[in-house]
């Protein structure tokens, strides 16, 4: 178990390496990429995706998934806007609490259906992806507020989204705090370790006395709350909200989690890995235009990077597995 105590696993070191190469090459082409403003932007851009990816990691570890992240984020971002339309001077903290609460409720709906009704998460959250988005559109047309613009939100809220503390973007600080907390729970707390057990072998986990249903429901609620937080931050950062915020975001989130080395069939992976995956994907999107990749090709390069990282991962895993098998055979044989 000593390898778990290392700050970064081999997989995570791989992502860090890829990140360093990418940043080095991009900086060689354009030194401003690593300037103060460049770094600031890089971390700011990755913050929201990081929050979503960390929440998703909790679920994927337990062999679940939440495809409704984009819709939940859209709903909570829209809630933030609606709050400001109702009362222009709402304190930022109230909006944060409301957004987190609404995200947690969405998560609880998903979790209840998965844990109690025993429907696979893939199906449940595919359904709620449409339901939550539909609620979002319905809400927009019911209130006649199709779009909320920067001048309708309070200056404090906008400053919160773009502000910095000692040069570090506030959104990034929030993402780091969440990451550290989730990492701690997953690494050291009993309930965190149980999530890995549930994902590795749900049946064995139940036999071992782990309250799997309760844990899964809790994970959906926590992950939903993080998505809710991300929705509010999205509103504060971008300053323009309509009912389609976050459409398609689930793909980016799942990509970040997978690139970050979280096994899609559960039981393995870290929040740190997912966060690095989010940072890597955001950096790729930011670096491509600077490297002069023609706009029409950028999507293709994005996808190719994803495939490359996954196939590298498979290759490493295959080698690791065969080495473990050899060692075991050597011991027992």
């Amino acid at each position: 178990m000593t390898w778990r105590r290392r700050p970064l696993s081999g997989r995570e070191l791989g992502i860090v390496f890829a990140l360093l190469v990418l940043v080095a090459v991009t900086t060689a082409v354009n030194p401003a990429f690593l300037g103060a403003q460049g770094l600031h932007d890089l971390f700011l851009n990755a913050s929201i995706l990081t929050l979503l990816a960390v929440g998703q990691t909790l679920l994927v570890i337990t062999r679940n998934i939440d495809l409704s992240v984009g819709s939940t984020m859209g709903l909570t971002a829209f809630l933030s806007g609606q709050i400001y339309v109702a009362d222009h001077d709402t304190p930022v903290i109230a909006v944060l609490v409301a957004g987190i609460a609404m995200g947690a409720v969405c998560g609880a709906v998903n979790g209840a259906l998965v844990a109690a009704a025993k429907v696979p998460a893939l199906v449940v959250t595919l359904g709620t992806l449409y339901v939550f988005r539909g609620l979002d559109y319905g809400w927009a047309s019911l209130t006649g507020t199709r779009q909320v613009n920067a001048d309708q939100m309070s200056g404090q809220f906008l400053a919160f989204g773009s502000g910095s503390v000692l040069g570090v973007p506030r959104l990034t600080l929030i993402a780091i705090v969440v990451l550290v907390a989730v990492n701690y729970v997953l690494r050291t707390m009993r309930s965190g370790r149980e999530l890995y057990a549930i994902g590795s072998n749900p049946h064995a986990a139940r036999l071992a006395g782990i309250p799997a249903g309760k844990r899964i429901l809790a994970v959906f609620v926590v992950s939903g709350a993080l998505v809710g937080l991300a929705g509010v931050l999205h509103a504060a950062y971008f300053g323009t909200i309509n009912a389609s915020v976050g459409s398609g975001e689930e793909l980016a989130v799942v990509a970040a989690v997978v690139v970050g080395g979280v096994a899609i069939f559960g039981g393995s992976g870290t929040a740190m890995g997912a966060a690095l995956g989010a940072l890597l994907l955001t950096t790729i999107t930011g670096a491509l235009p600077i490297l002069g990749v023609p706009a029409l090709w950028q999507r293709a390069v994005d996808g190719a990077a994803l495939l490359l990282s996954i196939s590298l991962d498979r290759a490493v895993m295959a080698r690791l597995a065969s080495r473990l098998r050899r060692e075991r055979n050597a011991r027992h044989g």
Partner: protein
Amino acid sequence: MTNTGSTRRAVLTTAGIAVSAVLLAGCAGTTKHSASSDGAASGPVTSANPNAPTKQGLKISFVPKEIDNPYENTVDRGGIDAVTGLRETGKEVGPSDASASSQVSYITTLVQQRQDAIVVAANDPNAVAPALKDARAKGIAVVTYDSDAAPEARQVFVNQADSQEVGRTQIRLISEQIGGTGKIAILSATPNATNQNTWIGFMKDELATPRYKGIELVRVAYGDDDDQKSFQQTQALLQSIPDLKGIVAPTTVGIAAAARYLSSSPYKGRVALTGLGTPDQMRQFVKDGTVVRFALWDPSQLGYLAGYAACALASGQITGKQGEVLKAGKLGTRTIGNHGEIILGPPTTFDASTIDNYHF
């Protein structure tokens, strides 16, 4: 293991549902209406009578690209205002996604409901054409606005602005704001958006004139009308072109995202930003000094003009021939141009002193 099994089953079921949905959608999109072979010549009215009275009790329907697009909603509100002002009835119906196949089913329903005129912003010029031809064959007036359908499928196209004029206005604005010299970049929507590319083409033509010889267009970036992507493209432009003087964003999503980024960055006030945006979206950034002046046509006037065109067509006052004159209430008159095109007029510009007069 049971869990894996059920997950696998779920994937298969999901895939099955997705495939059948795609097949169904495909059917809807390619339904062969008999009208497609009828040709376009079967329009109901043969000659216009400019002095005919406006018929009463007309039913006019507006079909936007998608029902939840605030811009389209504003357009349609203007149209419904015009129609109710003439004491007809107007309504807005349309799909929740911007796809041509979903528009077709709405158009088919409207034809069955015996509307007097259908006003549509086509998601695809050809895919909606058979359904529109079917409507015309049944004596329903067909107007396109904002985004045209194949010319033989409609009688009149109400164009927001002359594309050349849109391009020219934006170059004039950026030139004023950077003092006529320096490097500029364009932040567009998707690389294959027809209207964007037409405007960019005219901008390039305009920049080639001697008047703008001091301005160099160094790059065209694409933010895909996505906030995050537009943010990152703006950042990349500013980082990779250190002496960039200005950005032109001919898309409402792009200009708002670029303005939000600039307003919270050290580039604020140093790099000029203009383009096409809505006053509501840009108000904050005009007031905080990030943006000096930008342009857009008034979308409610676009709908208003389309509403008048629909009523005039349904009343036989116009037929869509070049040279006919459309009387359009508070907007005055418009002469129908080539291929049945009616142009709203030059874009309106907005700055700190005028922006509070507009709300859309």
